[in-house]
């Protein structure tokens, strides 16, 4: 439409084209493709080391889960501690369909998304009326309720005994004798979550989620339906989390309430990883997972027997350090430094 002339001001060029001032989705997808390349190299290097492939698989799984959480928790600022419920919803959906009906786990990913999103919408409808810490506490309670229900409805969950998923190696069963295919699957999951998060972030929904996080009154004043936007962000976030649950169930081939719904190992973990990596940034949750997950393996290996719970103490200390000195996490801090020194010419 109206072309604003390029002007030279303080050595900086500005034009009327607004999209020159924002990172485009294409740029973001290129960066993710670059990451995919790096992970491919890692796979080649680690291909004969099951121990390290296992760490890689977990890192990517939890990186993907934290990236999913970040869509509503980070972009939208809704600090859910109930994502374990959606994780479990996906895991139980896949486990049941595979165990009872012999349906290929690949096909169960679709119902897993639907079930996890539906559960998320049902529980978020009331809880999204709560703000800040009250919302977080309510979602924490949801996790506990889900734990009790999972123990009670043993027809669906196997109850406290859990469900052991049969080992029938083959691509169609998503069961493999080597760790390599699992690592590839988890990398794929991570990339899917990153691409989804990038699409959300570079769309109206992403901007609306951020506006809701930053100032609900301002958001409403420009026509944003706050509850609706939160629910949409939650549905996307929970759907991806459900897929993570499905993949996790097929990886360890065992599901029971403590594994799926433990607060410290699942519920709080997505948030913790995101906080350390940089909540609300696209790559923060991945950065957090790259730091935390291998560190946890290391701690468990070295401290595990000598000092039970030692790994949790180290993680707690790490979180305190980040809360005190790096409020914006790894990625947020780096981008702030970049803003201050790297992009001086912008001012």
């Amino acid at each position, binding site marked *: 439409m109206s072309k*604003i002339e390029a002007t030279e001001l303080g050595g900086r060029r500005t034009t009327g084209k607004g999209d020159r001032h924002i990172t485009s989705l294409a740029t973001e997808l290129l960066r993710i493709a670059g990451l995919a390349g790096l992970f491919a190299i890692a796979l080649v290097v680690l291909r004969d080391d099951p121990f390290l492939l296992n760490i890689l698989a977990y890192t990517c799984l939890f990186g993907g889960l934290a990236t999913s959480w970040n869509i509503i928790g980070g972009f939208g600022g809704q600090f859910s501690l109930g994502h374990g419920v959606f994780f479990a919803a996906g895991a139980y959906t896949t486990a049941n369909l595979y165990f009872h009906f012999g349906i290929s786990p690949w096909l169960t990913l679709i119902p897993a998304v639907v079930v996890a999103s539906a559960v998320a919408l049902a529980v978020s409808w009331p809880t999204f009326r709560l703000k800040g810490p009250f919302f977080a506490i309510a979602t924490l309670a949801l996790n506990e309720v889900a734990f009790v229900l999972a123990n009670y409805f043993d027809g669906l969950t196997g109850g406290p005994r859990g469900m052991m998923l049969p080992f029938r190696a083959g691509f169609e069963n998503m069961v493999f004798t080597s760790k390599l295919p699992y690592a590839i699957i988890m990398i794929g999951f991570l990339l899917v979550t990153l691409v989804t998060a990038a699409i959300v972030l570079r769309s109206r929904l992403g901007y609306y989620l951020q506006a809701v996080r930053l100032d609900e009154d301002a958001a409403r004043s420009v026509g944003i339906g706050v509850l609706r936007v939160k629910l949409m962000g939650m549905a996307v976030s929970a759907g991806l989390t459900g897929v993570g649950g499905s993949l996790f169930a097929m990886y360890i081939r065992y599901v029971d309430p403590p594994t799926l719904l433990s607060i410290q190992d699942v519920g709080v973990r997505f948030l913790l990883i995101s906080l350390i990596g940089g909540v609300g940034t696209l790559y923060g949750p991945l950065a957090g997972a790259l730091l935390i997950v291998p560190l946890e393996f290391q701690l468990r290996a070295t401290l595990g027997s000598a000092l039970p719970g030692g790994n949790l103490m180290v993680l707690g200390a790490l979180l305190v350090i980040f809360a005190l000195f790096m409020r914006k996490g790894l990625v947020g801090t780096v981008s702030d430094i970049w803003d201050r020194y790297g992009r001086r010419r912008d001012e």
Partner: protein
Amino acid sequence: MSDATALAAENLTKRFGGLTAVGGLNFSLRRGDLLSIIGPNGAGKTTLFNLLTGQHPPSDGRVIHEGRDISALAPEQRARLGLGRTFQISKTLTSMTALENVMIGAFLHRGKLAAAAEHAMHILDRVGLARRASVRAGTLTLSERRRLEIARALALDCSVLLLDEVMAGLNQREVDDVIGLVRQLHAEGLTVLVIEHNLKVVRAFENRVIVMDFGRMIADGTPDKVLSDPQVVEAYLGKKAE
């Protein structure tokens, strides 16, 4: 159609517990009107805006927009009808860039990122902030943030614009800039409501003024007439004497 009321208040009332912040206000604006609202601190001006834009449900009375009762609509629904506003305590999204702040408004009628960005850039240029597009809103000056908030409301393609003390704290040159901007928007056909403390600004607009005190309208007319009204003078002198 041409003489339709853009916005009207009918016996509009807001009580906070025992306090009547706005008491039985009546006025009506035609499309393209410019209305200044003045009054001492705590007179109920911001509360009136919050009633008009839906932040508060009224305790009594109605808000009429284009002949339709909108009293029960939420703020976001009224924004979609074309009511744009700024906040007395600035509500720019400080961690976002200036452009992104305006895009948040532009998205209402433009779903695509590029289209929203383009429209937002166009609006930023209109309010004189084009070269600050990629600067975080939190690092803008006060006067820039005020104009940014106006830009965000304009990006809605609003037909009614409500400005809550957008000149407060600005120096004379910045005030003149904003007056120029508001005049231009009014000239383009926007219906504008301006809450103002600065009587010079009210005089500069030369349009209808209503004066509020303790939630009631104590005067309504041209600036010359209203500002020489003894009741108005008393309300203001009373405040000064404190």
